[in-house]
């Protein structure tokens, strides 16, 4: 079947930008370029160009609505200057009162995930059940299959909501933690010193 002829408007990219704005405003989760292209019935490259236009229009300090690239997609959010008003309007249950235990568990899942409760407990030295349940309830982590080993404990990974709450484009934005500094070497030396005394 022949493709119907596209009418050439004065600025077709501007027209596409308006379509993208509409799609982003009705969505409640970030949309990938592919999803936007499919919904706008246009190609991905043009969508990316049009997104730049939308980004210029909806930028911090220029608009109360801001376009951001987050959790692997594009989404509108409130401008930072409007945070106080937004906070008066509604709470954010996902990130309210995250305990230290929950944050440590979340960090382990984010860096080492998918991982199981026993994995988390081994690293933290205490049972992780309540912290995991807490994070599940908040929607920051989700189940991601089971361990292949016998017994097959449920494994967990972080959710797109986690990336959104923490403003991450994706998990690779997490800082590298290979070098935790001189502290590690010091601890190691002290432990070795104890070991020498014991074996002596």
């Amino acid at each position, binding site marked *: 079947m022949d493709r119907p002829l596209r009418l050439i408007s004065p600025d077709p990219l501007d027209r596409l930008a308006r379509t993208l704005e509409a799609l982003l405003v009705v969505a409640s989760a970030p949309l990938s370029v592919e999803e936007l292209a499919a919904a706008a019935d246009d190609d991905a490259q043009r969508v990316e160009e049009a997104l730049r236009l939308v980004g210029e229009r909806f930028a911090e300090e220029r608009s109360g609505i801001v376009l951001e690239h987050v959790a692997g997609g594009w989404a509108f959010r409130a401008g*930072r200057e409007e945070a106080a008003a937004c906070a008066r309007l509604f709470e954010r249950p996902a990130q309210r009162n995250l305990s230290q235990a929950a944050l440590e568990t979340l960090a382990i899942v984010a860096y080492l995930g998918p991982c199981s409760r026993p994995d988390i407990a081994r690293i933290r030295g205490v049972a992780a059940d309540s912290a995991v349940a807490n994070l599940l309830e908040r929607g920051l982590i989700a189940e991601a299959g089971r361990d292949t080993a016998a017994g097959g404990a449920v494994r967990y990974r972080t959710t797109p909501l986690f990336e959104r709450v923490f403003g991450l484009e994706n998990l690779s934005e997490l800082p590298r933690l290979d070098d935790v500094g001189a502290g590690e070497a010091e601890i190691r030396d002290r*432990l070795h010193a104890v*070991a020498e005394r014991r074996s002596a």
Partner: protein
Amino acid sequence: MSGGAGFAGGGAGISVRELELDLDAFEGPFDLLLALVLKEELDLRDVDLAGIVTAFLERLAEREELDLEACGEFLVLIAALLELKARGLFPDEAAELAELEPEEAAEELARRLAEYRRAKEAAIWLRERLTGEGDRFFRLGPAPLAPKVETPLAPQDPDALAAALRVLAQDPPHVSLSHMALRFPPVSQFLERFRALLGRRSRFDFETEVRELTRLEQASAFLALLELRRAGELTIEQASPFAPIRVSRRSKENDPQQERTAVWTVRSA
């Protein structure tokens, strides 16, 4: 550690090693308990470590000053006992660590500590990030994307839909109102007819007489029959519901029993 001069709150400090214990599994000085445990002559699983802590705290409370040196020593010893006991309670972990040389155990411990330290560092980073991103508000809601619409139906012929609609769009059949014009046949006509009939015969069968008539005429005839019965000109009998209705000329010969039955039958009909 000090030379352990005092005993039982007597001298300058508490001697942890000479702390007298009175537990279910063991009675004697702390020092002896340690020795027995290390020689594996006493199973730590049977020892109530909380009891030792309590005994030490009681000894500590007897003194006016806090003996930091004794506290330090006690902490080290009780921590070691706790570790040993914990390993004993979890055999797998014990095997894993017990097989290691002290250097290897230290390395393993350092590795675990480093891992935990990384987790803690990451948690700190997340906490800071959360604070920094706290002014980002965004919409949260159910999954926004509609599932792709499946079309489970086989391809359909639009003409079939049109045909179906055509049937629905037709005018309903015209309702006949012809019966509205029907005149009810006069009851009087049947009054005359039944009187004449009973003049000729003493009894007749109602159904036989009206068989040829229309339903409306039959109804009219029945009304006439009831009218005549009321006037006492005839009697009506019916053996059972829907049985033939027998009509008889009223006469003095009819016995009272028969009369009562007829009345009863008609009323109940």
